[in-house]
């Protein structure tokens, strides 16, 4: 019996790789395993090579592994592109006749995937045949695979669902009969972690739950999943989702809607977020609450549209001209994405500042099963809204000890609502006064930053002061957790909110540590630089990955062991 297995289904775009991957995730989840699945795809709609890789285990797993125990290829190119990922002792299942492959290498298994798909109705059923084959190789019965197929195709109508189920059954029966000797058996037991979602979906659900009523964005991978999910629930929750003409419009729309008094957000990836920078600065100047999700992908420029990176940490910390306070959340799991969204709306409104949520493709699109966090946590806090006696005065930008003045909404009782992107006096009109400028800068920058700093989310710390302390933010939470569970003398600190930086908590966790290393999906060690600047502590090195792919548990462990860091 194996305690875990790593399964990869691969083929070209358009072959239903994602559908097959979703079926595998649900099959394992419902049969008492935990799953962590990554999606690796090219920036194209047809062709190329994509894979969906599901790690299924008897206990919770939150990181990918480098090598796959079973690879099933749906076209010839997939064999070449993925054979190097085959784990020692693993299998690569392929259709030798269909692909014209003569002479199987060690660990390759031939299965007539396309002939079986033809039995079910045609080549489009190859993905479901593949699911059936994998079910036979790794599960005791067909039942959970059948349920997963039904779930995947139930919305698409009876005939399609029935044919896919038949295809999976044919694949299962073939493999159970002919490939029985190669089967991996996987332990597992019933559990309650029956939700299956990724960071984008969790972030969207968090925003809906927080009362976001206006979402404007321009589609950009890998942030579009947030807009898709909000749109799916827009009518149920009374939300307007507006596809803006560009990201500049999107951010200015979010600011305009927020000014009117609704919770509003936008999202993009690096290039689109770059276009939003002036609007970010506008939100700060007008003290209009604004939430922006930045789902990172590798740059510069267009970069790798569908791949992952943590290259925009410093960009997010400094984006927008001028000096102003902001909060930057860096959730490490879908659960943290949900809570970060709720928290970001509260922070944005309590301090009337921009609140950024920094995610990345790996966090956004990797699927994990979980017991969902308490949905009632972090109830909405609208902050200071004008009412008679709410003080500090009726002026929109009245000075106050914490830098926060009461907002009024246009059309609602109270003083007129005003906002000005020029430097302005407390009443909101344009000023050239040096004294006012100094007071307003203090208000927007120092006073608010001090308040924000008091509320920074505490980092997650495991084994503080260990001989090796790993430091990370965002999507590296899972991989650091797993690495430290396996490696002797290793601990980690993970920042779920990177700004205002929790310097005291970081120093406390790192006190007495043998060596401090950052783990970052970028080429320059941006977190290491930030830590040095904010704590005076210089990390001894960084484990960096900047090939557009996520860290893997075995990859980080190997880097630690070999001392491969820069």
């Amino acid at each position: 019996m194996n305690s875990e297995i790593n399964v990869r289904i691969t083929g070209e775009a358009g072959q239903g790789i994602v559908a097959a991957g979703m079926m595998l995730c649900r099959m394992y989840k419902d049969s008492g395993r935990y799953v962590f699945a990554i999606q690796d795809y090219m920036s194209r709609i047809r062709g190329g090579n994509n894979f969906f890789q599901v790690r299924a285990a008897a206990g919770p797993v939150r990181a990918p592994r480098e090598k796959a125990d079973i690879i099933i290829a749906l076209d010839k190119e997939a064999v070449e592109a993925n054979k190097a990922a085959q784990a020692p002792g693993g299998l690569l299942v392929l259709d030798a006749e269909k692909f014209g492959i003569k002479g199987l290498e060690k660990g390759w298994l031939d299965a007539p995937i396309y002939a079986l798909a033809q039995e079910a109705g045609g080549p489009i059923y190859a993905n479901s045949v593949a699911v059936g084959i994998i079910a036979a190789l790794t599960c005791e019965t067909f039942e959970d695979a059948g349920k997963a197929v039904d779930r995947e195709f139930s919305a698409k109508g009876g005939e399609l669902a029935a044919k896919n189920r038949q295809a999976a059954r044919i694949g299962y029966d073939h493999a159970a009969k002919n490939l029985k000797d190669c089967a991996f058996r996987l332990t597992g037991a019933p559990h309650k972690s029956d939700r299956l979602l990724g960071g984008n979906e969790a972030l969207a659900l968090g925003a809906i739950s927080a009362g976001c009523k206006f979402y404007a964005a321009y589609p950009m991978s890998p942030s579009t999943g947030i807009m898709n999910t909000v749109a799916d629930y827009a009518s149920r929750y009374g939300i307007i989702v507006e596809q803006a003409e560009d990201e500049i419009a999107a951010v200015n729309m979010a600011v305009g809607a927020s000014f009117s008094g609704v919770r509003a957000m936008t999202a993009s990836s690096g290039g689109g977020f770059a276009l939003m920078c002036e609007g970010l600065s506008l939100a700060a100047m007008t003290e209009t609450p604004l939430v922006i999700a930045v789902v990172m992908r590798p740059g510069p420029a267009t970069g790798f549209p569908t791949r992952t990176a943590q290259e925009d940490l410093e960009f997010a910390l400094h984006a927008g001209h001028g000096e102003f306070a902001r909060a930057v959340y860096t959730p490490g799991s879908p659960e943290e994405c949900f809570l970060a969204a709720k928290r970001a709306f509260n922070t944005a409104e309590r301090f009337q500042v921009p609140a950024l949520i920094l995610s990345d493709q790996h966090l956004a699109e990797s699927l994990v099963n979980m017991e969902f966090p308490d949905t009632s946590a972090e109830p909405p806090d609208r902050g200071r809204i004008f009412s008679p006696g709410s003080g500090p005065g009726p002026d929109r930008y009245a000075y106050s000890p914490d830098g926060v003045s009461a907002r009024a909404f246009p059309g609602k009782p109270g003083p007129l609502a005003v906002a000005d992107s020029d430097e302005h006096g407390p009443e909101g009109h344009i000023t050239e006064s040096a004294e006012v400028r100094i007071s307003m800068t203090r208000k927007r920058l120092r006073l608010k930053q001090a308040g924000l700093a008091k509320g920074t989310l505490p980092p997650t710390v495991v084994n503080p002061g260990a001989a090796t302390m790993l430091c990370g933010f965002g999507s590296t939470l899972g991989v650091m957790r797993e690495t430290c569970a396996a490696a002797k003398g290793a601990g980690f600190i993970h920042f779920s909110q990177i700004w205002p930086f929790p310097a005291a908590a970081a120093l406390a966790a790192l006190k007495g540590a043998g060596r401090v290393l950052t783990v970052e999906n970028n080429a320059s060690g941006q977190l290491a630089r930030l830590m040095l600047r904010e704590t005076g502590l210089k990390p001894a090195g960084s484990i960096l990955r900047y090939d557009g792919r996520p860290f893997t548990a075995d990859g980080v462990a190997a880097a630690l062991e070999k001392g491969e860091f820069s």
Partner: protein
Amino acid sequence: MKINDFDSADPAAWCPGCGNFGIQAALKTALAKLGKEPRELLLVSGIGQAAKMPHYIKANFFNGLHGRALPAAAAAKIANRELTVIVTTGDGDCYGEGGNHFIHNIRRNVDMTVIVHDNQVYGLTKGQASPTSEPGMKTRIQPGGVILAPFPPLETALALGCGFVARGYAAEREHLSELILAGIRHKGFSLVDVFQPCVSFNKLNTYEWYAKRVYKVGPEHDVSDKAAAMTLAAERERLPIGVIFSKAKPSYEELSGLDAVPPLVDGDIANIDITPALADFR
């Protein structure tokens, strides 16, 4: 409401003799006739001389970024459909920096009135060419004269299906106030392009220059006739002012369903139950 109900305490920072004063007076007159209180009005602007207008009229205001008044205004209206939203912008702000938003907000057709102070020159940055400058106009940046073809706002708006297209002249205050009022009453995106002499930087399109060319569109013009509207909008020798085109069409608020529900801003967000949605993620 009276005109002085809309007086602002903020003194105007325009040059003496600026065409903006005429537009300000016309806007106040239109607002007095409209009968809504300052609390019900939202003036939105970007950056430029025209964009200072919201400071000089008593109402809610949002003075945002250069070129970005339209998206902010559209979303402010979407968030609270009960507001009367008026954008005051210039030819540089609206047709240059914000050109993409001009195109797509006409398509979006949110109910708001966009008054473009079209002085055919850049004022705040001191005398460069604008998108509507006449070819041949000499500036420090264009010493040999402007060589770019002028942007045609009325024809562009008509081509995009704008439901209300008008042109006014800052010196014809009463006439302009009627155009603005008609624009506000039209449900959907309303464009009022206004010839506005710039006494400091535009030595070509002066009060005298406009006086020789502008004429009021007569009652014989059928404002619902798009082909006739296009013909009027294309005139370059004599310059028609008045309602060029006006025809009802479904607004964003109607098509999106916003009109059928309470304003978004009035929604209760304290008790949102996300668990029914979570059930889909299994």
